[in-house]
């Protein structure tokens, strides 16, 4: 959880790492909650019959944007609220019910203006990357 105190860029250095467990044993309920919150009612994410018989997947799977949203928590918990200027990911592998996800952020650059760049990657319980990307933020100096 982010606190009131704002992280300062001077408190970070290139190579700093932060890891955070985002979700343990991802539930179908959370996937459905995300469908409702995001407005993405693609049946591939909640309708088992559609996902397996029509689409040919082993089961329903999480919205990529749910994993991106979960991963965003590493950034806001670490860097603070309202400080991001960019956040982007590639969806590398699908996330299924029962998965446990851990995000890792690494500081890759710090600018004199307080800008910081973070490389971010989230892996499942087998250590396989599910999303990978980067973020930028501007922090107080």
């Amino acid at each position: 959880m982010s606190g009131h105190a704002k992280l300062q860029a001077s408190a970070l250095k290139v190579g700093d790492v932060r890891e955070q467990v985002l979700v343990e044993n991802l539930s179908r309920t959370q996937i459905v909650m995300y469908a409702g919150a995001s407005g993405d009612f693609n049946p591939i994410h909640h309708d088992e019959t559609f996902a397996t018989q029509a689409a040919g997947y082993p089961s329903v799977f999480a919205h990529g944007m749910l994993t991106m949203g979960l991963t965003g928590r590493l950034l806001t918990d670490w860097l603070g609220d309202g400080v991001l200027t960019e956040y982007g990911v590639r969806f590398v592998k699908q996330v299924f019910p029962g998965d446990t996800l851990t995000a890792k952020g690494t500081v890759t650059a710090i600018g004199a203006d307080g800008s910081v760049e973070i490389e971010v990657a989230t892996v499942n319980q087998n250590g396989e990357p599910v999303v990978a990307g980067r973020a930028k933020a501007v922090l107080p100096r």
Partner: protein
Amino acid sequence: MAEHEFPVDRSAILTFAAAIGDTNPIYWDEAYAKATPCGGIVAPPTFAIASAHWNPHYVFRGVRKIPARVEEAAPRSEAAARSGGGGNLARVLHAEQRFEYKKPLHPGMRLIVSTRPGKSWEKQGKRGGTLQFSETVTEYRDERGELVLVATSVGVVTAKAVES
């Protein structure tokens, strides 16, 4: 370029934060949020995606009759699904997503969302046959026309189910 409105709502932010398992009170506790440098409740970084609720052209929109859409999207058999072409919604996956933030999103903002197609390209995938990628660029502006956020989404149409 298609345009639609997106009113940023406190309840929608709460629901979204709950869905991503984020207990940060900046997303729901007004008294807490006012005392932070943000000066009030803000939305989580990926919240702008929820503008889909307001997009009249969005294929998976909830206010449509979902069962009808499922029938339309679902081929009769797995074999049909596997031979399905670009029009098959079961074959569309999200490949990439980027956000550029200009201003934080606060409850009460009335945003105008405009969407335009970006680049498109093809790639031979090792897991899903020929992959057709296409970009959609979405701009969110406030009532004064100032840019609040830009979202770039890359979708991919796979020739068959991705073997995960």
